[in-house]
């Protein structure tokens, strides 16, 4: 059962967005996030929401999945709505006891909420339609220019990809050790924080020992297969832009231009 856990939150489907090159999606997400921060009118927010709605429909990912990511930011969302709603000065709409709600307050609160929701959902669209592997590939390729300033882009991508491979294995191993310790009477549930932390020690030590052993063996195996860093490496499936990526780039730029025009023209 634990073998089947997927990392990230990839949702397999056959859609236009799934077929896009990861670099296109990374770039598009970045532009979308930038454009969210350009929004300062109802029309601009309307355009951002409309774009998001179109992407959600194109992605063929069930809407429920889409908004799952929002749970993580629910508290942040509520706090930001709360402060904007009650602590913005301006034209008073109504007043209960000492709380005043202003017209500007309502507007800022709604905008803020829409911005946060669009931001998280927009990023989710990318992770839902891109496998962690191709996301890693995409990052390595699009951030390649950082090598100039000595950022070890290839190494970071390799580490991410190895982590993706070994996390399920280590999770399964944790489960095994936990069961073995429980069979000998260990208790991971009872007691306060200190007792629980203490109970974790016999779990963590064997896990660490095994993780280090695995790392050493993997390093030897990689060396034996001629691994010597990113230099001169080729790829079985090199990333290649297709026609849909070109179309997507045009649309992304068109969207950015539209958002800039709205910002300048609409007050």
């Amino acid at each position: 059962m634990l073998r089947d856990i997927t990392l990230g939150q990839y949702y397999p489907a056959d859609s236009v967005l799934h077929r896009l090159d990861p670099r296109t999606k990374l770039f598009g997400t970045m532009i979308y996030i930038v454009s969210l921060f350009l929004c300062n009118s109802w029309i601009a927010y309307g355009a951002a929401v409309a774009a998001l709605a179109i992407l959600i429909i194109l992605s063929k990912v069930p809407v429920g999945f889409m908004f799952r990511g929002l749970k993580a930011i629910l508290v942040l969302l509520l706090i930001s709505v709360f402060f904007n709603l009650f602590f913005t000065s301006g034209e008073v709409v109504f007043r209960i006891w000492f709380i005043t709600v202003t017209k500007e307050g309502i507007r800022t609160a709604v905008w803020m909420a829409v911005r946060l929701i669009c931001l998280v959902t927009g990023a989710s669209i990318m992770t839902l339609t891109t496998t962690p592997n191709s996301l890693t590939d995409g990052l390595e390729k699009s951030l390649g220019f950082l090598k100039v300033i000595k950022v070890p882009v290839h190494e970071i991508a390799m580490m991410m990809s190895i982590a993706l491979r070994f996390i399920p294995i280590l999770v399964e191993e944790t489960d095994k050790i936990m069961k073995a310790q429980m069979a000998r009477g260990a208790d991971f549930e009872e007691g306060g924080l200190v007792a629980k932390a203490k109970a974790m020690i016999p779990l963590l030590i064997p896990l660490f020992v095994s993780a280090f052993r695995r790392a050493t063996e993997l390093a030897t195996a990689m060396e034996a297969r001629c691994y010597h860093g990113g230099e001169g490496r080729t790829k079985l499936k090199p990333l290649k832009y297709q026609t849909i990526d070109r179309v997507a780039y045009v649309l992304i730029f068109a969207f950015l231009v539209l958002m800039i025009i709205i910002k300048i023209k609409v007050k």
Partner: protein
Amino acid sequence: MGLIDVKNLTFDYIIRDENDQIESSVRALDDINLEVNAGDFIAVLGRNGSGKSTFAKMLNAILLPTFGDVLVIGMNTKDESRMLDIRKNVGMVFQNPDNQIVANVVEEDIAFGPENLGVPSDEMRRRVDEVSSTVGMKEYLLKSPNNLSGGQKQRVAIAGVLAMKPKCIVLDEPTAMLDPIGRRDIIETVSKLNREEGITIIMITHYMEEAAAAKRVVVIDKNKVRADGTPREVFADYKTLRECGLDVPQVTELAGLLKNAGLPLRDGIITIEELISELKTRKS
């Protein structure tokens, strides 16, 4: 000159303290001489701690000799400029299937070696398809390695080595963590590679039955080579085997017991088939 020449090979593990000062050293290999010929199928036997894994790692420049030399197709493993060439020609498969698979998709793992060697993508595609059908893993190319059995993972590891087009494959106890079916699969795959593709095989094992499938058996004990010959010759020398902490294959032992009990069997029976045919000829 053989495919691999091992000359007066001695290796010490150096143990250092926190300040990088040499604390002590452990001798793991002591004056080993061995010539591996192209097309050989060698089984290396020896009890735990006898130096087998260390020996394997000397053959493709993962460890370098303290004294002596290892020559692979004439290239010295100490020559750093030839390192990739040596590793490409002498592939290694390790004991733990999980800890040698790098990628998250089977086909990408098989391609890992060629990727490091800078093989062009279309050539790489051809090799991946070819070697995956050689080891019988073609249907699994797009699967995650996490959902494979141990035997299947080892076959992926073998395919990953094959994709580099090596002359020789060194396998360090490849079946130790597998069930009987996985073990049989691996031995069959390895024998086929030797027979049909002419790839030189050096397989470390502690199963006598697996050693019987080889053309040549080398016994290592206490860091030295103690016996070297055909399986028949080596298994005939019970005394040396016992001294090295090894047993003869069960069927050889049975044949010996039957002979002692008065059945006139010939010497040097090492497989079940041989014993059966021998018993049949005695009956008629």
